[in-house]
């Protein structure tokens, strides 16, 4: 069995652990809520994260299709970009996967498979970079929204005409 | 405002409180003027003569239902029919033929306490209540 097949077989366990470690970046009471609550409308954070990690794991072992990855990664990062995370914390969860994979296969892995492992790990690095891109674009969107809202509100034209007078 | 307090929505609040107080006081009111003494039990002559029941009176008072439950279990399921009490006295374990033989005055013995404590055991639905004189006194 090659490494990919092995990981394929372990998919449920690995993605579950990954999901758990991601939601454990929240306060402990919240993370338990995120794990337990199944309603996607009452728990958008948890359900988005769960769908995302499963989808990304498939791509990691599959084609690494940038578009597909983005479709799974974007919703997670989009949420984390507005929650109170720093950039590294918002995106760093991608790299948890390395340790989880190593831990999961440490008993089975053979010497000649290290190359394969390394290639998967560099794919994870790639995921991390995509995550960072998404994070940045989310933050940019956020600032653009702020700026535009400000512009809309002050109604600059009227202000110039002296039609608006603030106290 | 703080100085002259008043009850707002007085009608409803007071009505609610009156109902509450009435409910709390209802047991007291219900028994107002009643002495409601504990029931006095009449013993039949036979019971008086026997002096002692299967167990001491106190234990019978509190635990007769459990004794009966034990008896029925033993008689019906294990075919054991003899009970020897701590004094060494033997009894046939039978509600019909032992208990009701002595206490053949259901209305004046069993019912008084049962009514007082509001329990309605269904023993007499099957066990004919006065084996000595076959009466259908209900």
């Amino acid at each position, binding site marked *: 069995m090659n490494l990919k097949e092995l990981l394929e077989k372990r998919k449920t366990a690995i993605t579950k652990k990954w999901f758990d470690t991601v939601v454990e970046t929240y306060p402990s009471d919240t993370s338990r809520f995120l794990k337990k609550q199944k309603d996607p409308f009452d728990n958008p954070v948890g359900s988005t994260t769960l769908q995302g990690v499963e989808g990304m794991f498939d791509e990691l072992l599959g084609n690494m299709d940038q578009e597909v990855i983005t479709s799974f990664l974007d919703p997670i990062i989009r949420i984390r970009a507005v929650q109170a995370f720093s950039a590294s914390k918002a995106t760093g969860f991608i790299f948890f996967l390395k340790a989880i994979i190593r831990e999961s296969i440490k008993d089975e892995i053979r010497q000649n498979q290290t190359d394969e492992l390394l290639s998967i790990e560099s794919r994870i690095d790639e995921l991390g970079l995509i995550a960072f891109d998404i994070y940045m674009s989310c933050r940019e969107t956020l600032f653009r929204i702020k700026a535009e809202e400000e512009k809309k509100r002050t109604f600059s034209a009227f202000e110039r005409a002296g039609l608006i007078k603030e106290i | 405002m703080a100085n002259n307090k008043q009850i707002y929505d007085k009608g409803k609040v007071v009505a609610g409180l009156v109902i509450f107080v009435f409910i709390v006081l209802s047991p007291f009111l219900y028994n107002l003027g009643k002495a409601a003494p504990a029931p006095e039990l009449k013993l039949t002559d036979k019971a008086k003569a026997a002096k002692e029941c299967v167990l001491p009176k106190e234990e019978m008072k509190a635990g007769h239902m459990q004794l009966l439950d034990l008896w029925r279990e033993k008689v019906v399921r294990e075919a054991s029919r003899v009970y020897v009490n701590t004094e060494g006295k033997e009894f046939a374990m039978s509600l019909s033929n032992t208990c009701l033989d002595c206490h053949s005055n259901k209305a004046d013995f069993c019912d008084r306490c049962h009514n007082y404590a509001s329990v309605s055991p*269904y023993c007499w639905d099957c*066990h004919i209540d006065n084996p000595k004189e076959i009466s259908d006194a209900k």
Partner: protein
Amino acid sequence: MQNRRDFLKIAGLSALGITGANPVLDAFAAGGHDAEESVFRILKNEKALKAEQWAMVIDTRKFESEEALEPIVEACHKLHNVPDFGDPELIEENGDCAEANKRHEIKWIWEEEYGHAFPGKAGEFVNDRIKHLPFLVLCNHCEEPPCVRVCPTKATFKREDGIVLMDFHRCIGCRFCMAACPYGSRSFNFRDPRPFIKKEDRNPEFPTRMKGVVEKCNFCAERLAVGKEPACVEASDGAIAFGDLSDPESSVRELLKSNYTIRRKQGLGTGPAVYYIV
């Protein structure tokens, strides 16, 4: 179960999931008073008849007509306070309709014709005598009773001496046992039976039943306990024998050895303990 107080304590403790001795609970049981340990014993009657598997042999040759069975049925039903829903007097008294009452019939022991009692054996051309012979049927006290298996509350159970017994206290009236019994030996109390037991006939020593329980023949367990044979045996004038099937010396074994006997629906594998000499 030697000690009542222990019994209480254990029942209480196990129900509460607490284990180990607890002085506090001792005090509970003692009702706050110090009581010396008291010991009671529960014994069997010395005269009680004992067996490993009670069985009955009915000599059908000795019953020529239905009339011959009547005293036997009456002896049983009177003794056990079995109501008679067909009694015209009682129907009148209770303002009932005879037709409706038929469905409520309760029977412990009754007469059945050959064809009904032994459906597997009733060919078209049966011995004429047998065909019209009245058969006395009752609960077979099977060795493998199907009624016991289906009872959800264990109200029906098999005693050590082979008697299949009803614990009326526990019966919840689900009637699974009636569906399971292939012999129709069980009756259900659709209504309070007492009004249909003549007052003068009531036996105060045996309980009546209440509405909603199932009942049937008990092999006169209450008589065996005091050293008496079943009422039907006593009333049969020697036509019915009763004894321990596992005892080679017993009367029933004697009869089985020397006569040809049949049992009802033997093919079902329930192991009926009532044998018929034909």
